[in-house]
């Protein structure tokens, strides 16, 4: 058991260390390491876990680690897996924070970030367009997107409040429609 836990820790550490660019980038590597290479879980089990990880709050990589860890080693397993996948970014960012706070006012660093900031805005902005296209959002849902953006940008509402309202809206839509699942509104 201890050997298995150490193995698990190392696999999740590797997943955490080698996936740049956020949570969704980690998923294919997780699948390969956990379902593919080591057969710790079947492909179907992994897909089920992923569905839960996407619909629960929190970073998808963390959710998946907690769930896979639990499936494989119970409560201790979930702690080991989560620690493994979180530690690489924790250590990296901690070192950067220590170093960066001392150099960020240097003219060269300031120049670099002046260049990067508008690119960050562009990357986030472009992802809105990509998401709207890929989700094949119907006009009703588009209204929700628009209202959510306006509520935050113009009326300064807390994004958490917007999420709660949207969730309640979805649930009341279920009540109105009598709880029937209509695939077309997706």
């Amino acid at each position, binding site marked *: 058991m201890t050997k298995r836990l150490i193995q698990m820790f190392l696999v999740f550490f590797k997943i955490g*260390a*080698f996936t*740049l*660019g*956020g*949570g*969704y980038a980690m998923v294919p590597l997780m699948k390969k390491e956990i379902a593919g290479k080591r057969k710790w879980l079947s492909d179907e089990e992994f897909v089920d876990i992923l569905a*839960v*990880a996407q*619909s*629960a*709050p*929190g*970073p998808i990589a963390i*959710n998946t680690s*907690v769930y896979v860890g*639990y499936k494989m080693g119970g409560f201790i397993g*979930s702690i080991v897996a989560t620690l493994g996948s979180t530690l690489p*970014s*924790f250590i990296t*960012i*901690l070192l*950067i924070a*220590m170093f960066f706070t001392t150099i*960020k006012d240097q003219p*060269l660093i300031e120049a*670099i*970030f*002046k260049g*990067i*900031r*508008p*690119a960050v*805005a*562009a*990357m*986030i*902005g*472009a*992802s*809105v*367009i990509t*998401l709207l296209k890929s989700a094949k959002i119907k006009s009703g849902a588009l209204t*929700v*997107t628009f*209202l*959510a*953006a306006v509520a*935050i940008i113009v009326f300064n509402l807390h*994004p*958490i409040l*917007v*999420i709660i309202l*949207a*969730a309640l809206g*979805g*649930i009341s839509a*279920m009540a109105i429609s009598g*709880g029937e*699942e209509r695939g077309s509104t997706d």
Partner: protein
Amino acid sequence: MAVLIKILLSFIKIGAFSFGGGYAVLAVIQKEIVNVNHWLSNKDFIDVVAISQVTPGPIAINSATYVGYTIKGILGSTLATLGVVLPSFVIILIIARYFTRFSDKPAVKWMFKGIRPASIGLIAAAAVSVAEGSFIDVYSWLIFLLAFILTYKDFDPILLTIISGILGIIFYYQPLHALFRL
């Protein structure tokens, strides 16, 4: 002490309400860190996002670690990171134990019919507030346009961050300009 508890609670909140992937969480993180608690300036917040693009790990974890450190050193960063992970941990364990087919439940599906389009709105709001702190002159608009088109064409975000950093040096680093005037 009080500030440590505030850090922990604030990041528990961020963890509990992060739906829809990395960029959607930005709106929540920014509200909590920049607007409500004033732990970082908007400019510093954008820099944390930029650093997150080129370092491993989810953006919520990265910003927790960074912000925690700037407020209260290593202890602060540990608490912030713990805070952001805690809700996932508790919620997933409960689901794993008691609701094996959680995501098939009609109420969950309908909830996400509301949350999914709203989280795109959250991303749009994050884009606007990042843009507010980023446009200083015509060069920033140029970089923005280039980055927007390249991202739309599926260009690698890490490479794009590096390129825009180099453009930053070319456009804004004064000693370089002085060199070429010689």
